[in-house]
């Protein structure tokens, strides 16, 4: 799947994701054929607001990959516009990882200077107005 628009967006500080340009269903990463309406090569890349909620998460207590020492969280975040993406959460000290909840409101922060660039999500203050 072509994810270059996403990666190139992160390099310039934008969170670009995709939906089907024909029917509007969120589809990220975008397949060649829309899973709902069947349109071909119809990905509509757009810049998301960066607002979202935690759809699920897990906390790694084992180090698998160099550069990712445990413990650290991995989350699936559902963006306000619909697409979901695999990401990590920031602003949580390791002892607070237990406080993550599904449904928690989060906001994107883009680290454009890292290679590859990343989008991570910071939990909004509890009870913050959206």
């Amino acid at each position, binding site marked *: *799947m072509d*994810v270059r628009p*996403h*990666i190139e967006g992160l390099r310039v500080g934008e969170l670009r994701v995709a939906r089907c340009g024909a029917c509007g269903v969120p589809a990220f*990463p975008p*397949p060649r054929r829309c*899973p709902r309406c069947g349109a071909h090569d119809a990905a509509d890349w757009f810049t998301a607001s960066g607002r979202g909620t935690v*759809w*699920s*998460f*897990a*906390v*790694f*207590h*084992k180090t*698998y*990959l160099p*550069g*990712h020492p445990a413990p*650290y969280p*991995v989350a*699936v975040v559902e963006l306000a516009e619909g697409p*979901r*993406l*695999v*990401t*990590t959460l920031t602003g949580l000290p390791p002892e607070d990882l237990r406080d993550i*909840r*599904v*449904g928690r409101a989060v906001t994107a922060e883009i680290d454009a200077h890292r290679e*590859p660039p*990343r989008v*991570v999500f910071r939990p909004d203050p509890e009870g913050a107005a959206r």
Partner: protein
Amino acid sequence: MSSPVAVVGVGTTDYGALGRPADDLAGEALRAALADAGLSVTDVDGLLTHRVDSYEGLAAEHGLDPRWTVPLPPEGRMTGPAVQLAAAALREGLCHTVALVYGNDGRTRGATYGAGNSGSTAAGEGYGTTPALTTPYGMTSPGAFSALMLQRHRHLHGTTEEHLATVATTFRAHAALNPRALRREPLTVEDYLASRYVVAPLHVLDYCQINDGGVALVLTTLDRARDLRRTPVHVLAAAQRGRLAGSDLPPEDFWAGALGEVGEAVLRAGGRRREDVDALMVYDNFSPNVLFTLEGLGWCRPGESPEWIADGRIALGGELPCNTSGGQLSEGYLQGWGLVVEAVRQLRGDCGPRQVAAARTVQYACAAPIVSSVLFATEA
């Protein structure tokens, strides 16, 4: 079915850290399955291999020049499709006797299923097709994918660690009755809760036992099977459904739609009702999959599996004994093949202290990006 198909031989090696190549283990299992069937390699004209390094080397080593050869990619989701494919080849008359041969040296090789040295495909590292979107965040391993699914299930349905512990403790109790099992020491809920996390909310005891071993099955048509030394075990039906589109992210429905479809398909094709199933062999690479499979097959409603399993239903003597060998959590991880062999051994009445009384119909099911199920029975 014009030409019914049966399992006429099974063979297994020792399990554990064996220090032998996968193809060597596969070959030993092949010889054992043929001996069990009372056949020789010259009787085999179909070969299906899974996880071995070289189907060509394996065939050459054992002098096989089949009319039909199919090597499958190494993911465990291929086991149900393997049986389905071999049965279809037999029904179609493409060959008359198929050896299905599996070998795995993951434990000796140091496979971790997540750190990039499993010698396998992207599926060995985690589900999905687009590592560029996951590895920068430290997302790796099929276990982490299962952990994400479990966390979602906990959120929707209130599933607790105590609920999930039932899977590991029940299968461990089964393993205590199986001399082949890797983990036979008693396991309590307290032991489970005190065990370390790997990728929370999964404890280490929710992970299967990485293992070395070989498994082989010999399948033939029923007319031939009747002349052989072992009582045939019928392959009543097999079905699969891909959930490959969108597989980069955990499935919204815990694969329930696909499980329901394949479950109904095998019961319908096999002329059985769900109540006829005497035991279920569930692909337990990680224990949450047992919950998802029971819900998807319709044994209980979505979200009710944590309560449903709580009162011994999936234990020997319960309403639906599951993974009577100890499963991949305690007997050892052989990507479904150990469970398929257990189904056959139960139907032959070969399981000694862990025998399900009067077992006549046993189902295999796997929840994964290719969902599959196979129905085995003592009679057509």
